[in-house]
């Protein structure tokens, strides 16, 4: 009973929040609705006895990802409404909705008929966090290390992309501008040496 009430409540809340995300014109509204939706989704993880994942969902998504977006907002003009020139809004809405439905059906149909069997049974006599740790550090050790490496690469990429050196693009500018850039670079280098 309790499970059903919680499921329908959080299901309705999540769907409402995500509908706001895809339909609103204000970036700030969209971002706050997304953060709320993420927190509501963690409720499903708690309902499904995946407490560790629920906590990770709150910490990583609402703590890290949404905070990163909020910092990104400092660079964008977030008070202005998003202008999107869609020529025929109703046709776009109907077509994209139908395409999305078809996509889900196509991707979901093979799984409905498939015979799923547990390949990694849940360890007995353990809490969820302990079981996650045991499985993560035995069967999934190498993917775990690769994920760590991937996060490092993403961190370096983020730092370099947001840095000042990337302000000039060599591929998008014309020749005179790139010559000016080159001269400035040499001048700066000379000043550094002297």
């Amino acid at each position, binding site marked *: 009973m309790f499970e059903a009430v919680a499921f329908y409540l959080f299901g309705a809340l999540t769907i409402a929040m995500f509908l706001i995300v*895809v339909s609103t014109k204000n970036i700030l509204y969209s971002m706050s609705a997304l953060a709320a939706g993420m927190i509501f989704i963690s409720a499903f993880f708690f309902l499904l006895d*995946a407490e560790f994942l629920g906590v990770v969902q709150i910490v*990583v998504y609402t703590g890290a990802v949404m905070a990163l*977006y909020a910092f990104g907002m400092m*660079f964008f003009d977030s008070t202005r409404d998003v202008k999107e020139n869609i020529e025929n809004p109703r046709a776009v809405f109907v077509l994209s909705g139908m395409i999305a439905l078809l996509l889900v059906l196509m991707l979901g149909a093979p799984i409905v008929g498939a015979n799923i069997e547990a390949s990694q049974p849940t360890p007995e006599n353990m809490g969820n966090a302990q079981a996650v740790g045991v499985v993560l550090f035995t069967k999934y050790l190498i993917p775990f290390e690769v994920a760590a490496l991937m996060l490092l690469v993403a961190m370096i*990429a983020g730092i370099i992309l947001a840095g000042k050196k990337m302000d000039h693009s060599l591929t998008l500018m014309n020749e005179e501008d790139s010559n000016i850039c080159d001269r400035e670079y040499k001048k700066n280098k000379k000043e550094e040496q002297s």
Partner: protein
Amino acid sequence: MITLNHYLILSAILFVIGSVGVMRRKNLLMLFFSTEILLNAVNIGFVAIGKFYGDMTGQMFAFFIIAVAASEVAVALGLLILWYKRTGSLSLDTLKSMNG
């Protein structure tokens, strides 16, 4: 009683919402928000199947998806800031520099 099908239907609904967002919006930031919705919808499906089949793999997969999403956001936000500095807008219509 909530069964596996309830969770899978919810996951499918959220996936539909996310893919409608990906196809309909023309702002790059909104596209990334919709991608987050897609990843979260799939996560619910994985964890639900893992629970009802007594399998830990579902939770592990959801865990790695969260890691991928976090690193995706770090790189994507760097690229978006770069693009906004250059063109002053995040509209998809400005992404037309390759004129054949």
